[in-house]
């Protein structure tokens, strides 16, 4: 069923949104310092025609969400629009008062947030929230609005569209909530929707469904959209044009095809080529370094089984990637190997010795040779210790190094992770995200391990930074001959670093072998779904992928 776009008076028939020379500032209150103003968006202009989709792309801190919200005259958390004009339907919305802005919000422009789970009021039924803006702005009576909402639920392929509105947010899954939120935005028949990373928090296999639903809804309703994301491959699927932003300034703006196929600026080129690390697969070796045999692990004293009969090997000096979605049990595997969660059954052999299940019973040498790097470098480093202590402690602890000898080795390690000696007395808070992760790597390397478990080490980082970390890990593997057990949900990353791959689904290994074997058809249904869900930087990939699927994703 088609949902008709309501016509509104317009002066320039074609132009919907015209942002000119936008400047946005915020006051930063860092403890112990005087408050200071920082510029978040600096002189950005954009033009959006009726019914078109503009993708805003950039890394964290690029100001893309701030620009999106400025089209509603909204500044999040003390952010102020200090300069420029925002013309919507021909009038400058920044000139009017709060009352005028309220008439724009929820009626002419609607917003879809990154985390729908947090963006819905937990105390109200979905339907009441979906039609709220439409009723407020007088877009039809209640019965009419609810009918429209049900039509939108159907269009967005939500299960049970007639009754899903009676549910409360916590009774609906994350992927579904994201679609309900899209329906909520469409329900008041706006001219423009701001999508703020609507699929980032979802698993890959769910992301593709939501993305397709959003794309169809945009096409069928003829609404215009600002689509904000950090993922160029995602934005290429839905937008007509793309604007690349960096540190609050525009880098490049053009047609989607031009941006992804013929970028002009170096920064855009770097973004486009971010997933193109070439890594040649290493062959099998006579004896594995780590051998996990028939391991079953459970929480709550055996009540909740998260790993079932898992067997994988890691070859010395090579990388085994463990791929799976959230809740698949891949991080549990890491905990079982390190001894943090002693397995219920099965055995783990490491460098010809059988490891004791419990961490407390392991010898210092076993502990030393098996190190770990975490997803969130922020919480993996003690905020009260300097880089010297953080990297120096394993040297003291395992090798008894002290004083000058230790500091010299710390400097050497800093050099290996491409950081200068000047960082030695810094605290983690004084480092960037990428630098923190590098320090974590150096801390692991300090122990001279044979195996490092990397648990989603690049997922929290911006694409370019993540790329740098991956390259570093590959280089270090060559120098130190260390093996990695690389846990990730991101197949693109895995392709770049793995020698062999294990695909894990609901606690079981569904596919395991060398990288080539795993990535060569014929596939099992789940691997097929996973592979076909990874967005590719290709216009039209989405439709192709949706048509070729054999299995429904689980988490939508």
């Amino acid at each position, binding site marked *: 069923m088609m949902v008709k776009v309501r016509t509104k008076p317009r002066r320039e028939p074609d132009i919907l949104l015209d942002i000119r020379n936008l400047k946005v500032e915020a006051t930063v209150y860092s403890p112990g310092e005087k408050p200071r103003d920082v510029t978040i968006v600096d002189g950005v202009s954009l033009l959006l025609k009726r019914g078109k989709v503009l993708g805003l792309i950039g890394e964290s801190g690029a100001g893309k969400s701030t620009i999106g919200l400025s089209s509603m005259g909204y500044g999040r958390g003390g952010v102020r629009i200090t300069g420029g004009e925002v013309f919507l339907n021909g009038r400058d919305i920044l000139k009017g008062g709060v009352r005028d802005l309220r008439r724009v919000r929820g009626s002419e422009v609607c917003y879809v947030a990154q985390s729908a789970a947090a*963006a819905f009021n*937990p105390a109200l039924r979905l339907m009441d929230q979906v039609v709220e803006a439409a009723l407020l702005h007088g877009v039809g009576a209640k019965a009419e609005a609810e009918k429209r909402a049900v039509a939108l639920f159907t269009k967005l392929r939500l299960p049970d569209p007639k009754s899903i509105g009676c549910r409360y947010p916590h009774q609906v899954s994350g992927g579904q909530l994201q679609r309900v939120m899209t329906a909520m935005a469409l329900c008041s028949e706006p001219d423009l929707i701001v999508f703020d990373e609507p699929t980032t928090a979802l698993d890959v296999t769910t992301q593709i469904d939501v993305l397709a639903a959003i794309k169809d809804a945009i096409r069928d309703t003829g609404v215009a959209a600002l689509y904000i994301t950090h993922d160029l491959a995602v934005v290429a699927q839905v937008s007509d044009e793309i604007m690349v932003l960096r540190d609050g300034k525009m880098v490049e703006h053009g047609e989607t095809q031009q941006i992804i196929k013929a970028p002009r600026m170096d920064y855009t080129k770097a973004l486009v080529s971010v997933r193109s690390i070439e890594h040649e697969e290493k062959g099998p070796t006579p004896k594995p370094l780590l051998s996990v045999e028939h391991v079953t692990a459970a929480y709550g004293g055996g009540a909740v089984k998260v790993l079932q009969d898992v067997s994988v090997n890691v070859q010395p000096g090579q990388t085994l990637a463990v791929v799976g979605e959230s809740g698949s049990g891949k991080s549990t595997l890491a905990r079982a190997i390190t001894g943090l969660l002693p397995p219920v059954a099965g055995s783990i052999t490491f460098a010809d010795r059988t490891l004791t299940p419990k961490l407390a019973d392991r010898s210092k040498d076993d502990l030393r040779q098996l190190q770990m790097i975490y997803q969130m470098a922020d919480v993996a480093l003690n905020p009260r210790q300097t880089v010297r202590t953080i990297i120096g402690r394993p040297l003291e602890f395992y090798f008894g190094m002290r004083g000058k000898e230790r500091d010299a080795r710390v400097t050497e390690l800093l050099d290996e992770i491409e950081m200068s000696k000047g960082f030695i007395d810094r605290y983690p808070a004084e480092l960037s995200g990428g630098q923190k992760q590098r320090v974590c790597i150096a801390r692991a390397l300090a122990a001279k391990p044979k195996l490092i478990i990397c648990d989603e080490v690049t997922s929290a980082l911006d694409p370019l930074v993540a790329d740098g970390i991956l390259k570093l890990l590959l280089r270090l593997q060559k120098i130190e001959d260390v093996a990695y057990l690389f846990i990730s949900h991101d197949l693109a990353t895995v392709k770049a670093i793995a020698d062999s791959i294990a695909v894990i689904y609901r606690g079981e290994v569904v596919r395991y072998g060398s990288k080539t074997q795993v990535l060569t058809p014929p596939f099992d249904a789940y691997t097929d779904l996973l592979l076909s869900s990874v967005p590719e930087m290709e216009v039209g990939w989405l439709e192709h992928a949706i048509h070729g699927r054999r299995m429904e994703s689980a988490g939508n």
Partner: protein
Amino acid sequence: MGSPVLTLIAQRVALGILLLFAVSVLIFAGTQILPGDVAQSILGQDATPEAVANLRQELGLNDPAYARYFHWLGGVLTGDLGSTLTTRQEIAKTLMPRLWNTLFLAFWAAIVAVPLAIVLGLLAVRYRNGWVDKLISGLALASTSLPEFFIGYLLILSFAVTQQWLPAISTVYDGMPFFDKLKAIVLPATALVLVVLAHMMRMTRAAILNVMQSAYIETAELKGLSASAVIRKHALPNAVAPIINVVMLNLAFLIVGVVVVEVIFVYPGMGQYLVDHVVKRDVPVVQAVGLVFAAIYIGLNIVADVAAILANPRLRHPK
């Protein structure tokens, strides 16, 4: 409303009752650690050994501690709180009217303090970081630092001595006309209100601010709702449980504040009764009054938890 909610509430109430029993054990044990002999200390040093032995027999002090505990508990459960050591009066008879007096005072203090604190808390959120807000946090700082007797005597000095508007001593008796009673408790009730008000405001403010920082408040704002509609439709339904929690916690404070305020204003309530008999070391009275105070305190906490369960949509509408 599903059965999980009922189950949870039943569990919480059962837990509260269990806790009350544990508390009764603790209070009983707490009064048995007296070094020396109770009978001896009641009768004084010159008492004859026969008199002491008789009293020991009478008080059941020759029985083991657990037997005495169950004897005491059995009495408590049937409404028999025992009799005082010093005057041999039935405790329950004296306690009941005093309990009512205390509840009367606490009730009127709460009637004033609770709505006032909530309204002021809402105002502080509405004008956050403005002067109203700063005044409130300043007052809260002062109120956590001021002893009750400072407030109490300041009130007496100002309104009963310098200006003789109200009595300095709050006498109430049976059959006293209602409005005379009210007039008598104006000063102690004001003191109690001042003791809990600022703290309650600050906690209400924090509870609402916490809700106001949720993402769904931004969603509501981006729908074009007015500030008051956002608070009414989206913030309040989620703030009810934390606010009830705040209120209950502060009523518990109030119960403790009552003890000191009653002594200041010589008000014939339970707190005064407790303090008098602690000084006289009259253990049965102390046990009984302590248990009543603890029961009220635990009861308020159960109400807070039950309210939180009822207000949680995840529990009311299970998957």
